[in-house]
C-alpha cells in the first residue's frame, strides 16, 4: 500500500509554553484510507492539523505528504495536494456566490476559464449542490455551506482531504449530509480522507482511528478495536456513541445482542429482528 502521509517523531511546543502540545507523534496514512484522528480539547489534534497543512512548523520530527517533505519551501507544493475543510462554515466561504467560491481556488491556481467551468460544475454535482450555483452564502444552511467547502476543495483535485472539525458546528442532519458526501466521494474517487474530530460518533465510518491524548497517540486501530477500550476512552473525556452505550447496557440486562454496535442503523436493525430471532429459538 502506498503511503501518502508519513508523520515521524513529530513534537511541537508553542512559544511561551512549558509543555509540549505534541510529543513524538508518528503515524502513516495509506492511499484511499479514511483515518480519523480523535481527541478531547487540548489533546493536540488541532495542533496536528495545523502541522499537516504547514501552518505551523514542527519543533522536531518530519512530515511527508505525497512524497514531499513538508518545509517552508515546499509548503505551497504540498498544499496543492491537500484539500481542507475547516470548522466554521462561514469563515471559509470566500466567494459571493456558491460558484464564485468554488472558482476562488481555481483562480488562484491559474486554471483557464473553460476548464474552470467544467470543474465547478463537476465538483458541485459531486456534493449535490449543482442547483445552488448562483446562491449567496447567507441563503444556505450550515451543512450546505460545508458541502460547498468540500466542492471547493475537490475542484482542486487534491490527493488528500482533511476535515478539520468540519462537522462540529452543524446540526445532526447537516453532519449526516457532510459525512455522506465524503463517503460517496471516497467510494467513487479513491480519495484519502483524514478527519479530525472530538466526536466519537464520526469514528464508526473510518478505516482506522488514531486517538490522541495529552499530545501523544493513546490508541490506534480499527473502530471496533478502539471501542473495545471503552472505559479508557471515557477516561480521556470522550463520549462513547449512544448506540454503543445502549448495546452495552442491553447486554448487561441479558438482552442477547450479538455485538457492540457502532452505528445506530446496525443497532436498530438488530433490535427489530431480535424478536423473530428469539421466537425462532423458542420454537426450536
Amino acid at each position, binding site marked *: 500500500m502506498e503511503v501518502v502521509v508519513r508523520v515521524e517523531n513529530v513534537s511541537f511546543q508553542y512559544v511561551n509554553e512549558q509543555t509540549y502540545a505534541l510529543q513524538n507523534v508518528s503515524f502513516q496514512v495509506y492511499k484511499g484510507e479514511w483515518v480519523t484522528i480523535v481527541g478531547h480539547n487540548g489533546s493536540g489534534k488541532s495542533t496536528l492539523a495545523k502541522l499537516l497543512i504547514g501552518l505551523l512548523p514542527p519543533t522536531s520530527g518530519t512530515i511527508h505528504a505525497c512524497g514531499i517533505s513538508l518545509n517552508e519551501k515546499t509548503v505551497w507544493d504540498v498544499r496543492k495536494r491537500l484539500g481542507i475543510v475547516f470548522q466554521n462554515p462561514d469563515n471559509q466561504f470566500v*466567494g459571493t456566490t456558491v460558484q464564485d467560491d468554488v472558482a476562488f*481556488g481555481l483562480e488562484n491556481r491559474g486554471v483557464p476559464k473553460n476548464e474552470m467551468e467544467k470543474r465547478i460544475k463537476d465538483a458541485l454535482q459531486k456534493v449535490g449542490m449543482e442547483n445552488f450555483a448562483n446562491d449567496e452564502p447567507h441563503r444556505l444552511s450550515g451543512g450546505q455551506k460545508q458541502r460547498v467547502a468540500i466542492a471547493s476543495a475537490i475542484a*482542486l483535485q487534491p490527493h488528500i482531504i482533511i476535515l478539520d472539525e468540519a462537522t462540529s458546528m452543524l446540526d445532526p442532519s447537516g453532519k449526516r449530509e457532510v459525512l455522506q458526501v465524503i463517503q460517496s466521494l471516497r467510494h467513487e474517487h479513491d480519495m484519502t480522507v483524514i478527519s479530525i474530530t472530538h466526536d466519537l460518533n464520526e469514528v464508526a465510518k473510518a478505516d482506522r482511528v488514531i486517538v490522541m491524548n495529552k499530545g501523544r497517540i493513546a490508541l490506534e486501530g480499527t473502530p471496533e478495536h478502539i471501542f473495545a477500550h471503552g472505559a479508557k476512552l471515557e477516561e480521556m473525556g470522550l463520549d462513547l456513541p449512544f448506540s454503543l452505550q445502549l448495546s452495552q447496557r442491553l447486554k448487561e440486562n441479558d438482552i442477547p445482542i450479538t455485538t457492540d454496535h457502532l452505528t445506530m442503523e446496525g443497532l436498530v436493525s438488530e433490535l427489530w429482528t431480535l424478536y423473530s430471532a428469539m421466537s425462532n429459538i423458542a420454537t426450536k
Partner: protein
Amino acid sequence: MNNMIIGKYVPGDSLIHRLDPRTKLLLMFIYVFIVFLANNEWTYGVLTFFTCALLFLSRIKLSFIIKGLKPVLWVIVFTFLLHVLFTKEGNIVFQWLGIEVYDKAIQQGAFISLRFLLLIVVTTLLTLTTTPIEVTDGMESLLSPLKKWNIPVHELALMMSISLRFIPTLMEETEKIMKAQMARGVDFASGPLSERMKAMTALLVPLFISAFKRAEELAVAMEVRGYRGGNGRTKWRELTWRGIDTAFMILLGFLAIVLWLLRS
C-alpha cells in the same frame, strides 16, 4: 436589516441589466459631467428624454426609483426653494409678505432641481440594475491601468468583494449579539444619548473580536486554497464587451454633442 445595503439590486434581464458593468460605470461617470452642459429648455428636454429612455429600457418599476429618491427629495425641494427665494433676476412674478419671486428664479430653481433629480435617477439606476460584485469587477477592470503605478487594484477589488460577501454575515451576528446583550439587560433603545453610546460598547466589542477572528480564519482558508496575491491568477468572472456596449458609448457621445450644440 439585510435589505438596507445590498438588497437594492433588482434582478432582471433587461437591456440595461445585461450591459457590461464597465459601460454602466463609464456611462454614469460621463453623465455626471455632461449634465452640466445643459442650460436651457432644449438641453434639459433632451437630457430628460435620454434618462427616461434609460429608465424605460431597464424595465424597473417606477416605485423602486421613487423609493430610492425619497431620502433626497427634501434636498431637491430645498434647493428649489433656495433658488426661488434668493435669485433676483428677470421680472417679478408675484409679491407676498415682502417676498419677491422672479421668473428667472423659478426657471433656475427648476433647472437645478431637475439636474439633481436626473443625476440621482441615473446613479440609482446603476445600483438597481448591477449587482455589487459586477460593480467591483467593473471597477477592477477600469482601474487596472493604475497597476503600473503600484496601486494594488486587484487587492482592493478582492477586499471589496469579501466585504460585500460578509455584510449579511456580520448583520446577522450584530443582531445575535444585540439580542444576547438585551437578554442580559442592556438597553440599546432608550435613555439619554450618552447612555446609549455606552451601551453600544457592549455590542461593538464582541462584534469586533468576532470579526477579527473571522478575518484570521478566512485568511487561513484562502491561503490553503492557494491564494498568493494577484499574480498568475485567472478570472472566473470575465467581462465581455459587446456591440451593444459600444453602441451605448456612441449614443452617449452623440448626447454630449447634441447638448453642446443646443446649449445657449
